[in-house]
C-alpha cells in the first residue's frame, strides 16, 4: 500500500490530541477535556488528507482498497452532462454519437442526445463545485498574485520527485515543457531528443476552449520501432513517415501530406511515383515503414505503444494581453496504448459495457498502480494534478476515474482520443499548438465552421451557456449567433480566447479549487454558479431534446474547406 506522508507536526499532533485529554487525576484543579469527535463522510476525510498531503504520491486512505473511498461512483459523467438544455440547446452532440462505418468506437450513444439514461447514482449531480460561489474568495486574490502563481513552473521538479518516490509509472521525460513552444523545433519535435512530437489541433468544443478556463497542449510519441530503420537505427525520415501514416490511418485518409521524407533512406516508394526521392505526400498509407514495416495496420486505431502527453494549464496572460499556455500546469495527463486489437475485440468491450449498464453496474476500471487506470480498450491512463501548494502530485483513483468518461465511454472519439483526430491536417499540423491563423474549419460532412455551428446549436459559448464574453462577442441581443461577426473573426484564437480580465478571473477561481483540493467535486473554473445546471435529473421526467435538434457529427475536421 502506498503511504501518505503527513508532516512531522501532524504525526506529533496525533499524540497531542490524545495527550491533551489526559488530565492528572490527582490534580483537582485540572481541566479534563475530551477530544471532540465528529462523524464525516469518508470522502471528506479524503479531501482533508489531500489538503495536508506532502509528497508526490496520492493515496489518501492507504488503509483501504484504492476504490473504496470514492465519493462519486459516476465520476465518468462530466459536469457538462447536467446542463439544462431547455429542450433546445444541444451541446451533447460533441460527445454522444452513433457509430461511423469502419470505426473501432461502437459505443453507439448518439441516443443520449435525446434522452437521459443515468444510473440511479448518476441522476444526482455530484459536482458540488458547480454550485459554489467563489466570488468572495476570488476577489481576495490580486491580479499580481494570480499572475505570479500562473507563471510559476511546477513541472520541472516533478520528474525528480517521482524518481525519489520510486514511482514506477511514466515519469515526465520531456524537458522544458513548461516553456511551451520553446521546448520544440518548428516541426514540433522535442528539442531534448525524447522523440515527443507536438502537434497543432483545434480544441474540442467547449470545455477546452481557453475562454472557458483552460489552455492545453498535446504531444504524441510512437514506439521505438516506428522511429527506427530496418537496422534499428533512429531515422527521422522513418519517424516522420510513420507519424504521417498514423495520422492517415487514424483519420482514414488515403493520402496525406508529410514533413519532408527521404524515401531513399526508407527504401520504399511512398508516393507512388515509381521513384525514390524527397517527398511531401504519402499515398502508401496501408503499412508502416522501417522497423515497423510488419506492424499491425488498421484504420481508426493507433499502433501499439503509442503515447500521448497532454498538459492542462491555466490561461496565460502575456505582454499586451496575449493569451497563451501558462507555465504552471493544472494537470499533466498521460496515456499509453499497450496493445492494439482487432475491431471485434473493441466491439466486445463496448458490448460488455452495455451489459454492465443493463445490469445496473456502475463504472469500474482496473487499477494499475503507478500506471493509473486501465480503460480496458488497450490504454493505460494516468495523471498528475496540483496539490494544495501547487506542486504536482499523482491523481487519486477518483480523480483518475474522472478521465474515463471521455477516454473510455463516449461515442464521438476515435480510439479514445480527441486531439489527433482534430489535428491540422498533414504536414501543416506538425508543430506546437497555435490557434493564431487557425481557421474555423468545419467538421467532416458539414460546411459551416465548427465553432460557428456550435455556438448556434448550443446557444452559448459553453455547455452551461454561462460565458458572458462569448455572448457579448458573438451573439445578438435576440440570442442568435452574430454570424457576420463570427465569420469575420480572423482565426480560432480570436473566437475562443478570453480577455485578460476574464482569464485572470478563471485562473483565480481554479486557484480556489486547488486550495480546497476538492477536485472530486469538480474542476470547472466557475466564479459563480452557472445558472443552467441541474442538481438532480430524473431520467423519466427531465425535459429532453426533440429529434429535430439531434446532430450527427464527425470529430474530424475538413481542413480543406
Amino acid at each position: 500500500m502506498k503511504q501518505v506522508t503527513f508532516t512531522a507536526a501532524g504525526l506529533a499532533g496525533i499524540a497531542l490530541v490524545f495527550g491533551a485529554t489526559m488530565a492528572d487525576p490527582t490534580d483537582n484543579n485540572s481541566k479534563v477535556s475530551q477530544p471532540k469527535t465528529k462523524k464525516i463522510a469518508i470522502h471528506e476525510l479524503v479531501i482533508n488528507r489531500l489538503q495536508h498531503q506532502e509528497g508526490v504520491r496520492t493515496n489518501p486512505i492507504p488503509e483501504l482498497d484504492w476504490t473504496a473511498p470514492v465519493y462519486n461512483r459516476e465520476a465518468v459523467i462530466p459536469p457538462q452532462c447536467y446542463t439544462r438544455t431547455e429542450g433546445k440547446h444541444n451541446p451533447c452532440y460533441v460527445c454522444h454519437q452513433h457509430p461511423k462505418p469502419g470505426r473501432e468506437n461502437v459505443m453507439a450513444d448518439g441516443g443520449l442526445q435525446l434522452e437521459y439514461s443515468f444510473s440511479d447514482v448518476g441522476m444526482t449531480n455530484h459536482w458540488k463545485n458547480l454550485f459554489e460561489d467563489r466570488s468572495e474568495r476570488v476577489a481576495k486574490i490580486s491580479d499580481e498574485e494570480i499572475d505570479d502563481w500562473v507563471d510559476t513552473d511546477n513541472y520541472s521538479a516533478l520528474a525528480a520527485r517521482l524518481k525519489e518516490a520510486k514511482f514506477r509509472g511514466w515519469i515526465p521525460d520531456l524537458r522544458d515543457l513548461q516553456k511551451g513552444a520553446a521546448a520544440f523545433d518548428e516541426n514540433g519535435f522535442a528539442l531534448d531528443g525524447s522523440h515527443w512530437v507536438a502537434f497543432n489541433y483545434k480544441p474540442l468544443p467547449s470545455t477546452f476552449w481557453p475562454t472557458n478556463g483552460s489552455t492545453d497542449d498535446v504531444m504524441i510519441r510512437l514506439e521505438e520501432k516506428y522511429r527506427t530503420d530496418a537496422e534499428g537505427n533512429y531515422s527521422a525520415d522513418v519517424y516522420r513517415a510513420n507519424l504521417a501514416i498514423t495520422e492517415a490511418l487514424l483519420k482514414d485518409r488515403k493520402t496525406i501530406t508529410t514533413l519532408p521524407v527521404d524515401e531513399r533512406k526508407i527504401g520504399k516508394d511512398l508516393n507512388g511515383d515509381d521513384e525514390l526521392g524527397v517527398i511531401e505526400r504519402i499515398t502508401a498509407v496501408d503499412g508502416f515503414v522501417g522497423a515497423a514495416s510488419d506492424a499491425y495496420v488498421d484504420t481508426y486505431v493507433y499502433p501499439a505503444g503509442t503515447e500521448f502527453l497532454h498538459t492542462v494549464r491555466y490561461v496565460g496572460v502575456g505582454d499586451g494581453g496575449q493569451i497563451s499556455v501558462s507555465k504552471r500546469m493544472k494537470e499533466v495527463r498521460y496515456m499509453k496504448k499497450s496493445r492494439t486489437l482487432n475491431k471485434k475485440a473493441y466491439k466486445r468491450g463496448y458490448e460488455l459495457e452495455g451489459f454492465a449498464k443493463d445490469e445496473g453496474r456502475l463504472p469500474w476500471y482496473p487499477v494499475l498502480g503507478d500506471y493509473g487506470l486501465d480503460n480496458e480498450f488497450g490504454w493505460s491512463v494516468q495523471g498528475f494534478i496540483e496539490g494544495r501548494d501547487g506542486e504536482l502530485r499523482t491523481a487519486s483513483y477518483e480523480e483518475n476515474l474522472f478521465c474515463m468518461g471521455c477516454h473510455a465511454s463516449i461515442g464521438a472519439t476515435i480510439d479514445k482520443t480527441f486531439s489527433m483526430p482534430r489535428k491540422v491536417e498533414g504536414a501543416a499540423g506538425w508543430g506546437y499548438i497555435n490557434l493564431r491563423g487557425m481557421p474555423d474549419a468545419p467538421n467532416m460532412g458539414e460546411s459551416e465552421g465548427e465553432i460557428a455551428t456550435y455556438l448556434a446549436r448550443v446557444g452559448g459559448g459553453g455547455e452551461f451557456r454561462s460565458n458572458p464574453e462569448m455572448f457579448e462577442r458573438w451573439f445578438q441581443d435576440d440570442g442568435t449567433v452574430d454570424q457576420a461577426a463570427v465569420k469575420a473573426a480572423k482565426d480560432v484564437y480570436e473566437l475562443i480566447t478570453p480577455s485578460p480580465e476574464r482569464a485572470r478571473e478563471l485562473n483565480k477561481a481554479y486557484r480556489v479549487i486547488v486550495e480546497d483540493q476538492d477536485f472530486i467535486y469538480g474542476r470547472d473554473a466557475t466564479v459563480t454558479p452557472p445558472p443552467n445546471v441541474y442538481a438532480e435529473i430524473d431520467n423519466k421526467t427531465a425535459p429532453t431534446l426533440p429529434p429535430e435538434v439531434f446532430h450527427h457529427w464527425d470529430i474530424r475536421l475538413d481542413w480543406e474547406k
Partner: protein
Amino acid sequence: MIKHSKCALAGAIAMAVGSMATAGTEPYFIPLTQGELVDLADGTKVVEVVEQTDADGNPTGVFVATDNLITLQGVDERNKPWTVPVGITQTNLMSMEEVELGEGSVVRVDNGRNSSMFDMLAFDPEGENIFIPHETTFGAGVSRYNIATDRTDVIFQGDSTGSEGFKNDTDFGAFDPVRFTPRGTLIAGEEWSGTGRFVEICDPYKTPEDPRAPALTAGDCNSDPDADWRVLSGLPLSAQEGIEFSIRRPDEVMYFIDEDRSGSIYKVTFTTPGDYSRGQTSVLSVNSYAKCVQSDGCDPAERWDRGVTAETQRTGAARWIALTDINGNALPGIQNPAENLLDASGDIIDPGFAARVAGDNVGSTPFGRPEDTTISLNRVGNEVIYFTATSENTIYSLEESSRGPILRIFADASTPRNLGFPATNATLNAPDNLALDANGNVYVIEDSPNTTQAGRAGGDIWFARDVNNDGVAESLDHFMSLQVAGSESTGMIFNPAQPNKFVVAVQHPQSTILSDQDESLSSTSEDSDGVRSSLGFGDAIWEFDISGAVAPQ
C-alpha cells in the same frame, strides 16, 4: 427459529455416485443472509474523526480517524474469496500464480486482467482432471489441471494471430464452454471472439510439447489416430455458451445456445451418432412468439426487450424448427448456420454469427443473452434443459415432453429468496452459469454484484429449490457470495466421482495483472518482473466440500 444440525447432511444429500437423481431437494445448508460487503463507494459511509491540535492546543485542521479503517477492507482473495454457508470449506486448487511461478503452463495472452479468463470448467468422467477453457480475446485455449498431481498444462491453444483478425483456423477466441464428450474427446466453443466455432480436441489427456494449433495435427478425431484436433466445421457458428449432451441420447443430440440480446436455443442431432462433425440443427420456437412473428408483429432479429417482442409471451408450448437437413445442409431459404456471412474485409456482417441469422430466418424465439445450460431429468424421465437469460435476470427450464418442448420460467427476480429461512439482502442479478448436483438441484451463478452501488465484487451463487420438480423453482436460496474485486465466478461444476465436491473459478480478478510493484498494462513489459500482486494470485480454481455443511432442521 431455524435449528441447525450437523448430522442431517448425510441423509439430506445422499449423493449417489454415477447416478442421475431426478428431483430437487430442500437446501442441505443454511442459506446466507448477506451478499457482498456493503460498498463504501457511495460516499455515505461515515468515519469518526478528531481534529488534531498542535502543542499549544490549537486546531491544525488535520482530521485523524478514530475508526479502525482497515476493518472496512475485509476481502481476502488469497484465503477466503467467498462467503459460504456454515460447514462448507473452500480450498484453492490452483491459480495462475502457482502455475506461473512453478511448473506446468496455463494460457496467458497480453490483455490486462483479461489475460487468462478461466471460464466454464469441465471434469473428465473420473473426476480426476479439470479442463479450463480460456475466454481470451485471441490465443484462446484449453488447460488441463490434474487434481492428484496438482499440475496444470496447456493442451491446446491458438497462435494469437487473432489479435489482428481471425482469418484462418490457426487461432481462436473466447473459449467459453468446454465439455467432455461421450466419446472421450473434448469440445470447446468460441463465444464472442473468433468465428463461433466448435473445436474438438481428440485426446484431452495428451500434453503436447507445443500446444499451439499450427504445431498440432488437424484431422478427424474419429478416424485419424494421429489427429490432435479439428474444427467441427459442419456445426453451427454462434456465440457459444453452454454445451450440453443429451442424457438419453448422449451420442446423438447436443444442445447449445447463442449469447446475444436476441439469442436463441439450438439443438444438433448428429448425422452419425458419436461423430460430432455434422448433423441436423434445429432452433427453438415458442408457439406464442411464433404467432407474433407470423402476424408480422415480432421481429426475431430484434432484442428480447424491444418492440413488440418485449410484450410477447415467450413461454409455453414450443417446437424445434429445423435449419438444416440431417446431413447439415441448409434448408431452402435459410442461411447455412455453419457459414458466416462476411464483408469485403472478412468481418462477419451484422447481425452476426450464421446460426443467429438462420434462426432469424425461421422466426426463432429470442432471449436476452442465454449464457449457460445444464440438463437434467424430471420425475417422469423427461429431459429438462435449463438455461440462463442473463439480461432478463431469468433462468428458463425447457422440458422435452412427449407432447413437444415446453418452456417455463424456472426462476427470476420475483422468485422468493430463502423461503422459510431468514431473509437475505442479496438479490438475483445477472444469472450467468448453471451447475447441477447429483440430486438434480440447479445452482445459479451470477456474474454481477448484488447492488448497483457496488460494481467491484463478484456476485452470488444461488441454490434453486424445486422440490416438486415441476420446472419452476419454489425458492432461490443464497448459497455463496464472491467478494474479489473486479472478478466473477465461472464454471461451477460438481465432481462426477466425488459428488460432495464442486469447483468454481474466479475469473479476471485485478490480480491477474502481474505485479503491483510494476503494474503495467502489458505483461510483456520490459520492467515486468512477474511478481504477483500481494493481494491475489490471478484467475484461480477453488474446490468446495459440502460434506460438512451444517444443515437446517
